[in-house]
């Protein structure tokens, strides 16, 4: 359980750089601005410029974060390669360069936010960002609780998949995964019901 529980927390690289200390809102603003610029001006200067800006910010964030810069290239290089070749033929090599560099820039700026922000801060930010839902009569704290419940449920569901597959194996049922798919979902619903009971019993999210 604990191993899979940590799985989702693996992104943050602790540090004390200026990027780490910048507010979450400011970081997201940069991502949005970069995204908008890349979308509006499809010219090499903007694509390459934002990419360079991103690298600059990674450098500011310290060597540990900088080393993480290449990771998406290792996983996704073939996507960029195919896209680049395709656009070179369809349009022009220069346009391909613009598109690929711009896309990479946005993805990298987005990753930088994750690499330099703790999950707790991300979720706090989410709660604050959700505050406009007050206007609709909803409660941002409800959204925060939903997020917490969701994150807690991911390892629980993963564990239940493991347990069910163990149980099926123990009974010699090996025709995965279709036999197991329904029980996994049924168990998930049962888990949701138990969670609901526990919440209700603690008076959380009371109706009247």
């Amino acid at each position, binding site marked *: 359980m604990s191993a899979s529980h940590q799985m989702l927390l693996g992104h943050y690289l602790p540090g004390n750089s200026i990027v780490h200390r910048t507010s979450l809102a400011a970081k997201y603003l940069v991502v949005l601005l970069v995204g908008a610029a890349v979308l509006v001006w499809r010219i090499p200067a903007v694509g390459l410029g934002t990419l360079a800006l991103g690298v600059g910010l990674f450098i500011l964030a310290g060597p540990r974060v900088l080393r993480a810069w290449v990771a998406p290239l290792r996983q996704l290089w073939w996507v960029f390669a195919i896209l680049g070749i395709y656009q070179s033929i369809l349009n022009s090599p220069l346009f391909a360069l613009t598109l690929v560099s711009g896309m990479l820039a946005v993805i990298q700026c987005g990753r930088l936010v994750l690499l330099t922000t703790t999950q707790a801060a991300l979720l706090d930010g989410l709660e604050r960002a959700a505050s406009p839902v007050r206007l609709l009569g909803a409660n941002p704290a409800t959204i925060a609780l939903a997020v917490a419940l969701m994150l807690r449920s991911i390892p629980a569901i993963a564990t239940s998949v493991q347990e069910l597959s163990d149980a099926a194996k123990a009974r010699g049922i090996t025709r995965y995964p279709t036999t197991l798919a329904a029980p996994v979902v049924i168990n998930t619903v049962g888990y949701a019901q138990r969670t609901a009971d526990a919440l209700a*019993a*603690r008076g959380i999210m009371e109706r*009247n």
Partner: protein
Amino acid sequence: MIRFNNAGLLLPADDPTQGGRTVLAPCRVDLAESRIAVIGANGSGKSTLLRMVNGLVSPSTGSVTVHGFDTVAQAKAVRRRVGFLFTDPLSQLVMPIVSEDVELSLKASHKDRTARSAAALAALAELGLEHLAQRSIYDLSGGERQLVALCSVLAAGQDILVADEPTTLLDLANDELLQRTLGKLRQQVIYATHDLDFAATADRALLVEGGRIVFDGHASEAVAAYRWMVRHGSMSA
């Protein structure tokens, strides 16, 4: 004071497989003693009875009140007064870190963050659990988890605790620890259990059979009656 006013649960007739089944026959009891045990066979209706106390199950006939509040119409008032402890602590701990989970219970009463943290620590300390505050709930032993769940439930300041087989998953040492902790609580405790020694320590016990309360009185007598019924095969199950 908990009062069952002819409260019962009959499954509606349109249920495909269960139509018209009586899960709990209408009953009229007042529960005021400090420690009350509920015993009986599997499927006899213990959990159903306990769940009615805090409105997790609504009666289909009659009503249940706690300190005069109706468990259905005034659910919120009731849940502020009644805490519920489940068998499996993992299904009731909501947040991944012990102190965060306790804080969640305190959200309604403590708006301020730092005050809430302090209150959570105090609640943990009351059960001697302050050393667990920063631990992940997944790293705790079964007994520690159940105690943390108990702490989270009690943190909201309820004065009645309902517990459905709280010791079943625990080993000898943890079982004793939880029983000792429950014993010391100032709250009224109503619990279902299959551990008849545990049941015998209560001030009063209800014996449930086939959805009916068939004995209500001294815990040791209820246990004896139950043993007798099992021995003589007069159980419906």
